[in-house]
Every structure is written in structure tokens, then in C-alpha cells.
């Protein structure tokens, strides 16, 4: 029994080795990042969102609902939210079309639109159905509205009969989320829309990726976007760091469920995966092959440092960010993100001869 997986693994390794032969390091990067990071990350979101949709449906079909049931459903929501955080930074491909990101998450919510629009929708005259939700504002279609339903005032109503409209909204939002996740996955997958193939086959006839640098540039832009989002939107603005004004914990991501720190942790893990392609021939290896071994290792060390600083934050960001015990960790994380950004915005593009967004960063 133990020999079979070993032989299988060996054969797999041979296959990967053979298929990698004759390919340039850049082609290998696109292959490895696709199969080791992009597809698995989307697959995870799909699987978690399916579990959440099924659990929500079962929960709302029960005649009586207990606080234990609610706690279990919250865990399923956390799973789906984690699945989303794994791909939240990806800034190319199907997620950029059709406002799919907005349908999944509405944040930051400066005017408490989520609560207002959810209450309007639930208390309105129309039936609370999936088509009605999909016609409604993106604000209430996905994880953010579900967080409000599961963790804010509606939560206790969910346990009583009067909470049925809230449960109907919850169920519709979970189904909608699963549809978005499924749509995203199908559009990436080689057996579906095969956006992966588009990304992995740059060339003059490929409008989206006219050359390899454009394809690798999209990956680097994703890393920059993801790191900037953590640094600016998930730390500086809500916590009032770096002259970003006063702290406003309501700008934190997932403040209702107190999952802000966990979301950052998952972002960092998935960004590191996009950088390394697991143990594959990712950006990390490409830099080494271009003689930038030191830079390559330095970036890996910075990711490790950012992840361990995040993991060492005690309690939740919304409630405990000011505590002395967390100050060092938050400052280390913030500073490390700045160093990672410098690498991905300047040193790495320069080393690889890649241009990042030109007009998109212009502001004129």
C-alpha cells in the first residue's frame, strides 16, 4: 500500500520533469503558477462556498434552529470567507469582469450600507429569492451581507420564527456566492473558459498578453495590489497608522466577525504561494535563475516575517490593536509590507525588464 503512492509520485515527478523540458523559465513559471497556485486557490473557494451554500440551505430548512447550529454555520461562513481571501488579490482574469469581486465582498463600508440595504431588502414587499437578490445591489449579494446576518443584530432572530426572511436572504446570498465561485472556477479552468490557457500562451495574437512580460507583469501587479491592500486598507486606514488619520475600526475588514487578522494571514499565505508556486518554478525561482538569488531569498524571508508577525497578534485587530503586546507585531508587519512592496514595485520588475501598469497608475 505504501509503495503505490511513492511510485505514483515518482511517475508524476518524471512527467512534470519531462513536460518542463524544452520550456523556457518564463513558460515554466506560467505553468507552475497556474497549476500550483491559481487553479487550486480558485478550487478551494469553490469547495468552501459549496459547503456554505449547502449548510445555509440545511440551516434555514430546519424547523427549529439552535445556537449550536448557528455556531456551526458561522464556521462554514469563515471557511468560504477564507476561500475568498485566498483569491482576493488576484487582479487578472475572470474576477475583473462583471463586478464579480463586488458581488462577493463589499468593503470598506463607510456608510453602513450593508446593514441598511439588507434591512430594506428583508423588510421589503417582494419575495426574498435568489433572482431578487441578484437583481438587488451588489452590496447585499455576498459574504459581507452574510456576515451582517450571522454576526450582527439579525443573528439572534435567525434562531426564531420571525427570522425566516433573514434566513431566506442568507440562503440566497450563499447560493449566489457559490454561483460566483463556480463561474470564476469554470472560466479559469482549461475544460471551461480556459482563461488559464490565455494567460499561459502569450503572443502577438493574444490581445490580453502580447508577450511573456505582460503575463508575468499581471502576476506581479497582483502581488503589488494584494500587498498594498493589506498595508493601506487593512492596516493604515482602519488603525490610523502612517498619518492616515484617526483609527476607525469600522473600516477593518470583517470587523463584525473579528476575522480581520485571519484574513490578512490568508492573504499573505496565498501571495507567497503566487510568488513561489509552491515548490514549483515560480517567480521566486525565476529570480534565482536570473542571478538574483539574494533578492529571491530576501523576498521569501520577508513573507515569512510578515506571516509570523501577523500570527503573533493576540486577540482581534478591532479590539486589541492598541494593546502594547500587539504594537511590535503590527509595526513589524507594516514595515515588512513596505519592504515587500518596494521589491515587487521596483527591484523585481527592473530585474525582469517588466513594466507594471502605466496609465492605470497615472491619475491624470
Amino acid at each position, binding site marked *: 500500500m505504501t509503495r503505490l503512492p511513492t511510485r505514483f509520485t515518482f511517475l508524476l515527478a518524471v512527467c512534470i520533469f519531462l513536460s518542463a523540458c524544452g520550456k523556457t523559465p518564463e513558460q515554466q513559471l506560467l505553468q507552475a503558477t497556474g497549476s500550483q497556485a491559481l487553479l487550486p486557490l480558485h478550487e478551494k473557494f469553490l469547495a468552501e462556498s459549496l459547503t456554505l451554500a449547502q449548510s445555509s440551505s440545511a440551516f434555514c430548512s430546519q424547523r427549529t434552529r439552535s445556537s449550536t447550529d448557528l455556531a456551526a454555520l458561522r464556521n462554514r461562513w469563515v471557511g468560504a470567507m477564507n476561500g475568498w481571501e485566498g483569491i482576493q488579490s488576484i487582479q487578472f482574469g475572470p474576477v475583473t469582469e*462583471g*463586478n464579480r469581486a463586488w458581488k462577493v465582498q463589499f468593503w470598506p463600508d463607510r456608510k453602513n450600507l450593508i446593514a441598511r440595504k439588507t434591512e430594506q431588502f428583508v423588510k421589503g414587499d417582494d419575495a426574498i429569492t435568489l433572482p431578487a437578490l441578484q437583481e438587488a445591489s451588489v452590496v447585499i449579494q455576498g459574504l459581507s451581507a452574510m456576515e451582517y446576518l450571522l454576526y450582527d443584530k439579525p443573528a439572534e432572530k435567525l434562531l426564531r420564527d420571525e427570522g425566516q426572511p433573514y434566513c431566506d436572504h442568507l440562503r440566497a446570498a450563499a447560493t449566489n456566492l457559490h454561483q460566483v465561485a463556480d463561474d470564476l472556477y469554470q472560466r479559469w479552468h482549461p475544460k471551461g473558459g480556459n482563461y488559464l490557457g490565455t494567460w499561459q500562451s502569450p503572443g502577438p495574437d493574444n490581445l490580453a498578453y502580447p508577450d511573456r512580460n505582460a503575463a508575468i507583469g499581471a502576476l506581479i501587479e497582483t502581488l503589488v495590489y494584494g500587498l498594498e491592500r493589506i498595508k493601506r486598507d487593512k492596516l493604515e486606514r482602519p488603525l490610523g497608522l502612517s498619518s492616515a488619520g484617526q483609527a476607525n475600526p469600522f473600516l477593518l475588514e470583517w470587523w463584525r466577525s473579528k476575522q480581520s487578522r485571519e484574513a490578512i494571514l490568508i492573504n499573505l499565505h496565498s501571495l507567497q504561494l503566487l510568488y513561489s508556486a509552491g515548490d514549483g518554478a515560480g517567480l521566486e525561482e525565476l529570480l534565482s535563475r536570473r542571478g538574483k538569488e539574494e533578492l529571491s531569498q530576501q523576498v521569501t524571508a520577508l513573507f515569512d516575517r510578515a506571516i509570523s508577525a501577523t500570527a503573533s497578534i493576540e486577540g482581534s485587530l478591532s479590539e486589541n490593536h492598541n494593546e502594547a503586546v500587539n504594537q511590535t507585531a503590527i509595526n513589524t508587519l507594516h514595515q515588512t509590507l513596505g519592504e515587500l512592496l518596494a521589491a515587487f514595485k521596483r527591484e523585481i520588475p527592473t530585474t525582469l525588464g517588466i513594466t507594471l501598469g502605466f*496609465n492605470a497608475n497615472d*491619475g491624470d
Partner: protein
Amino acid sequence: MTAIELSRRQLLGATLAGLALGATAAVWPGTARRIYSAASDRANQHFLCCWADGALQFKVPCPGRGHDVLLNPLTRSALYFARRPGNWLTVLDADTGALQARIASPAGRHFYGHGTLVNNNALLLTTENDYASGGRGLIGVYDCRDGYRRVGELDSGGIGPHQLATLPDDTTVVVANGGILTLPGSNRDKLNLETMQPNLSYIDSRDGTLLGQWQPPHHQLSLRHLDVSRDGEVVVGAQFEGDPTLALPLLFRHRGEDRLQALTATDPVWRQHHNYIASVACAGDAVIATSPRGGCISLWRNGEFQQLEQLSDVAGAAFDAKAGTFITSNGRGQLVQFNQQGLSLTGRVAELRWDNHLKVSS
């Protein structure tokens, strides 16, 4: 030069005037399509370019990033404007790329990157920042027949004038005052986002009279880029400086109404534009708008949304009247045709990143 002097000069020009040419497209009869745009390369060197027949026709180095370009059939010139806060304006022979004139903005002033022609292409108007007096918006006036010599200036009607265009009467100009105060020393920082007051102003180019002024529905909708249709309808695109999670209309049209008319689309369509419109180009009842942040081009007809296409880092847009199609450009060196069938590649200069705006002659 005083307003009265300008008026006299204009009147003299007017007596010689034939039919006013379209405000947005120059026509070079009998020549192949040529595309003009500023660009930068990977080494961050900057150029003034012309592309035709699948290749660059000229690539002239310039001191910094360019922004818009304007074609003047009267002097057979391509006029390239420095990007804010640049202080140069370079006039090249549109056929050969040979230098015709190099103009610097006056002391204490810089260009905003756009210009327009009035009076049968005899006068050039440019948007300028009078930063020495704290950021007053100005329109500089230059005589095209006299080596583009500066001959006067007008008030733009607001802070941060950006793109301007000429109405079919060849006299009235419409200017998008973005409302954002920037000063050269402040590293392009926006200094008044809480109090900004953008507007669309109509100005009589002969004497600077403010003929009308309209505000967008939100004071942080910075009106920036515009185009004028053949029948004088103005379409203006905005960049929203407020809460990025809001989805507001970013395109407005105006032709005599008592307020700006928002183009109609659903929230998701507006969200696709990421609160940022780079170029607007009109053709008949059709309009396209580009959004490099949204990586998309949208097509509108009679004020209503029709179609959206994805294109990375797209910014430049113009209508090629001869071919009956829109041409767009992006930071990946691509020139991409856009019509109802969607996008198709016209050409690519791999080493260049096309800057914000382009013009087509055909």
C-alpha cells in the same frame, strides 16, 4: 495682449474663415491613417510618436512624459503637450516629425496636458495652472501662424482646468475644470479634495466671457476629459475622488440643458470603470470611454450604455472617421480597434507604453 486685441485678431481671422473644421479630427486628404501619441519606453525615456502602416513613422525624444496631442492642418503640425506639471509644448511637422516650434509655459505657469484650436485653426488654446498665484486656472492663447507665439490668456472658470474642446461655432470652447488644486512643489498631491468644486465651463474664446457653467452632482466628481460631437453635444468623463466603494455615474452629456445629463447604466457597469475615466471620444450618437484602472472600454449610444470590452491599461481613444471605427491605445504598446464586433489588434510597438491620449488622421 488684452482681450480687445484678441477679439480684433479673431475678427480679422473670421473674415478669412471658410467652413469650420471638426473640433476633434484633423483631415489629411489622401494619406493613410496615422496615429499620433506620446509614449515612454521601459528605460523611462519619453517620446513623441507617429505610427502608420504597421510601424513607427517617427519617434522624437522629449524631456518628460507627454499627455495629449493635437493636429493642426493649417500648419501641418502635431502638437504634443507635456503632462502636468510639465512646462513644454512641442510642435512637430506631422509628416516628418521635424521640429517646427518649442514653446515653454511662462514663468509661474505649467501646462495641464491638453489644448484645442479655434478660429480656423489659427489660434491654439491650452489649459494652464497659474501656480505662482496659488493655482488659478487659465487658458493660454497662442498664434499658430506666428510660430505658436503666446498672445494672451483667459480665465478657465475654475481650478485645475484639464481637457478643453471647441464647439462647432469654432469660437466657443468648453473646458473641464477638474477642481483639484495641485502645485508643482507638492509631488502631484491633491491639496483640496474635501473642498474641490469641479465644473464644466463654456467660454467665448474671443474675449474670455464665461458663457455658462455647470457642476456635476457630487463635488468630488472631478470632470477631466471631454469630446464634442458634430452637433455640439459635449460628453465629459469624471474621476471620482470620494468614497471608492460608491458607484456614481462618471459620464455626462450636455447641450443646452439646465444641468449635466448623466449617461445611463446600471451600478455594475459604473463599478467596472473603477471611478476613473481616461479618454472620451464621440462619433455621431456613439461615445466610447476608456478606464485604465478598470481595464475596460465602454460604448454608449444616445446616452445609454451598450457594450463593455476588457483591455489592460487602456487609456487613449479617438474615432477614425475614414475607417468608421474607434482606435484605442494602452500601456502595453498596443493599438486596438473597437467597434460593435469587439476588439481587434491594429498594431503594437512592443518597446513602448502609449501615454494617455491619441489622435488619428486619415
